[in-house]
């Protein structure tokens, strides 16, 4: 394919990677010098910097701009340096090779069209030589030239060059990478960088610059399916503009588009653009690479994170998917870890459900394991908190790769590998127009699977002052800290809201408990362990609450817990001063004094607070829930 003039004028971004001290910065400094790209005075400045440190001329000082880099002789962070060959403009990205700075190497490499990987031929293939090769592959850098540097140290020996070349080529083949060239170089001397080295006349391949000139810019994904992740919705004036960058494909005024995962369909009314030119006519279409704004024919509710596509070629929808991950976190990654998934403009909590093969540190051998160490590459399964719109990485890079973060820190990046899990779009799309009953698109079992436990109702009953509320709130905290979705419904709290219109007569008491029973059942259906703390003196009321909870298929049902303490004890405790008021006749129909309490016949559990401390009571209940709400 011939590239257009405009594409040819675009600087090609080349990242230079490789093991620490293999001579990346030296190569970059020498290349810049040999193509005549150093500004006036730069050589003198570098000479002065070297002299003041009492060392010979150091090419790496051309790019190692930071004081610490010159003092320690290592590159800490990425530099971007522009230069031109006779063929085209370039930006050289000099990435650090030290293990500690892999995240900076990734930052530099992800922005590149192509890469130069430098290996010290005297030292041979080392840890970062392999790791960087693998990371380039995962970052989607397909054009790679390998420089076997420091040929001067092995007297330009073709046999030793061939040994290292063959070893590394074999490694690259094992990860599916084919290098464009493997070049013997002596960077300090400028051998085979821009000019061919007479001392290595046995080498027939291209010089480094010739290899770079043969690379092509990354093609924009214009011919792929439309993907336009929504960045924001603006209403600065009468227009409601949906803004985002077209990551792939084309979009035209009049196109029928679908927003995923919200699954809403409309048509493009206009493509908006601001221009200061009088009489400016906004465009009728836009394509991959352009930041655009569109207005739609219907005022549908969309939000940041939605992905716009055409109706015929929509992204995959799922809440669970496989991925290859490179892990940059300092702490090892283990299954069960919760983080934030950022894919396109979507962001949501995810949990690492499974860890598969790990390509380990050091020798990059493969192993099965449960811990992903810093800078490992691993196969994982991620489960998101809701449906994600995504693509397989090979089908669409922009919607097929993601980062994982925790708080402010990006901890890793990965590429999506579809397969093994179904597209859930069909299952989550309502088919009928006139359905009476709304069917949940998420089943009780799915919720339990996500939470790691079933939902259900733990119904505390007992006299006022028996300890229900105390136990309930402490229990909620303990369960929460154990990763259980727990929620307390407490008498006084419900009576100030949902049941504010109810009094304390028998009818209102029954209605109070009926509503609480139904509300508890809804929470249970939503996956929660609901702990209720109501005197609930009537057996029939508790039976109705039980029936409501038992209607839910796949939940843990209803667990009646008798919080037992005698009337005398409760009256002595009298935490709210209610018994005193009841005895004084200030409260009518007070349970135990002037109204009955029907103790449970066959409670699932009895918690005797006359013999157990509050902590012991909570522990007893927490253990009981641990056993009975297991998924």
């Amino acid at each position, binding site marked *: 394919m011939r590239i257009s003039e*405009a594409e040819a*004028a*675009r600087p090609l971004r080349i990242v230079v990677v490789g093991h620490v001290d293999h001579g990346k910065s030296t190569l970059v400094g020498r290349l810049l010098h040999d193509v005549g790209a150093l*500004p*006036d005075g*730069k050589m003198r400045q570098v000479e*002065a*910097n070297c002299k*003041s440190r009492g060392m010979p001329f150091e090419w790496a000082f051309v*790019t190692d*701009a*930071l*004081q*610490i880099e010159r003092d320690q002789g290592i590159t*800490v*962070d*990425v*530099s*971007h*340096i*522009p230069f031109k060959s006779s063929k085209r403009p370039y*930006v050289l990205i000099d990435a650090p090779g030290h293990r500690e700075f892999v*995240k*900076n190497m*990734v*930052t530099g*490499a*992800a*922005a590149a069209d192509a890469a130069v990987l430098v290996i010290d031929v005297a030292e041979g293939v080392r840890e970062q030589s392999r790791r960087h090769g693998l990371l380039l592959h995962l970052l989607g850098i397909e054009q790679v030239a390998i420089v076997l540097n420091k040929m001067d140290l092995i007297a330009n020996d073709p046999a030793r060059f061939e040994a290292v070349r063959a070893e590394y080529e074999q490694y690259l083949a094992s990860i599916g990478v084919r290098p464009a060239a493997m070049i013997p170089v002596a960077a300090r001397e400028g051998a085979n960088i821009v000019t061919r080295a007479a001392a290595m006349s046995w080498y027939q391949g291209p010089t480094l610059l010739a290899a770079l000139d043969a690379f092509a810019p990354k093609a*924009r994904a214009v011919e792929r399916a439309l993907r336009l992740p929504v*960045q*924001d919705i*603006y209403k*600065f*004036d009468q*227009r409601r*503009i949906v*803004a*985002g*960058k077209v990551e792939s494909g084309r979009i035209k005024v009049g196109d029928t588009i679908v927003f995923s995962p919200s699954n809403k369909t409309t048509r493009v009314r206009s493509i*908006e*653009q*601001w221009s*200061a030119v009088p009489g400016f006519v906004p465009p009728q279409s836009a*394509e991959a*690479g*352009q*930041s655009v*704004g569109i207005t739609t024919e219907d005022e549908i509710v969309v939000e*940041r994170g939605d992905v716009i596509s055409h109706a015929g070629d929509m992204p995959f929808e799922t809440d669970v998917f496989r991925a290859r991950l490179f892990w*940059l976190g300092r702490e090892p990654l283990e299954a069960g870890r919760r983080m934030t998934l*950022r894919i396109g403009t979507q962001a949501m909590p995810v949990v690492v459900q499974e860890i598969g093969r790990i390509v380990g540190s050091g020798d990059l051998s493969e192993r099965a394991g449960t811990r992903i160490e810093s800078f490992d590459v691993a196969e994982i399964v991620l489960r998101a908190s809701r449906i994600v719109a995504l693509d397989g990485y090979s089908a669409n890079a*922009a919607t097929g*790769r993601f*980062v994982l*973060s925790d708080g*402010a*820190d*990006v901890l890793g*990046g990965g590429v999506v590998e579809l397969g093994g899990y179904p597209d859930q779009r069909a299952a989550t799309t309502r088919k009928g127009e006139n359905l009476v009953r709304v069917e949940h698109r998420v089943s009780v079992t799915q919720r339990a699977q996500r939470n790691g436990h079933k939902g259900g109702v733990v119904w505390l009953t007992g006299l006022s002052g028996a300890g229900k509320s105390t136990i309930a709130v402490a229990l909620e905290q303990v369960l929460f800290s154990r990763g259980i979705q727990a929620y307390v419904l407490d008498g006084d709290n419900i009576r100030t809201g949902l049941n504010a219109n109810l009094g304390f007569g028998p009818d209102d008491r029954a209605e109070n408990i009926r509503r609480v029973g139904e509300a508890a059942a809804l929470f249970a259906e939503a996956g929660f362990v609901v702990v209720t703390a109501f005197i609930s003196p009537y057996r029939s009321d508790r039976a109705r609450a039980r029936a409501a909870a038992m209607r839910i298929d796949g939940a843990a049902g209803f667990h009646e817990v008798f919080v037992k303490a005698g009337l005398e004890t409760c009256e002595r405790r009298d935490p709210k001063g209610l018994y005193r008021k009841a005895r004084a006749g200030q409260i009518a129909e007070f349970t135990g004094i002037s109204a009955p309490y029907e103790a449970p016949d066959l409670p699932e559990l009895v918690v005797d607070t006359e013999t157990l401390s509050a902590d012991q009571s909570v522990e007893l209940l927490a253990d009981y829930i641990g056993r009975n709400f297991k998924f």
Partner: protein
Amino acid sequence: MDELDRLESESIGIFREAFAAIHPIGMLWSIGKDSNVMVWLARKAFFGHLPFPVIHVDTGLEFPEVYEFRDRVAREWSLNLIAAPCPPIEAMDQSLPPNARSASRKTAGLKQVVADHGFRGIVAGIRRDEQSTRAKERVFSPRGAESKWDFRSQPPEFWGHFATTVPEGGHVRIHPLLSWSEIDIWRYIQREQIPVVPLYFSRNGMRFRSLGESDITVPVPSNAATIAEIIAELETTRVPERAGRTMDHEAEDSFERLRVDGYM
């Protein structure tokens, strides 16, 4: 799409990510060529609107042409302009070389305006090709309470996912022009007909290639009197852009020290 289209689209995307994630935002406007392009790009990003103020960190030592330009353009473009004063040179770190010390007034003025307005995002028009420590910057660069640049541990930044979380008590610097080069800026100014301060154009064989305070900026020899001539000059020049910025050349690490302390 040519290179300018690509750069424009990337910068617009950066503005929109910043606006979606960080509030409130202020944008530095030095009145120089780069920051005029930046304001222009922001108006494109938000469809003719500019939903945050522009800040001129004012040392009081700008060239008269700069003030004249600032007030005229602010009016014509209806900018919400904050003119933020800087503390006097006597209050600066006396261990800095004299010109860097003068420049450090801007850092202090910037810290003050960030504190006064509670800004959590500061948009700055620095470019990687200007200066070798700027070449190491991130698009989104988190700053702690002291505004310091922790170049030793910058966050990873790839695939368009930026560090948009604001550090406690600090702010995030946003750099929409980071991948633009000097010649890109001039080509874009030419294409979009963006106004610039006339000091950039040659008079009597000299012009300002980079505009700073009048006490620490000198013109360089040049006959480029039009935008087209400036572009032609840049295509062949070997003189670095900041040759006329005296603060860069006093000591090996003077600019790095300024930037670590929070300079743009």
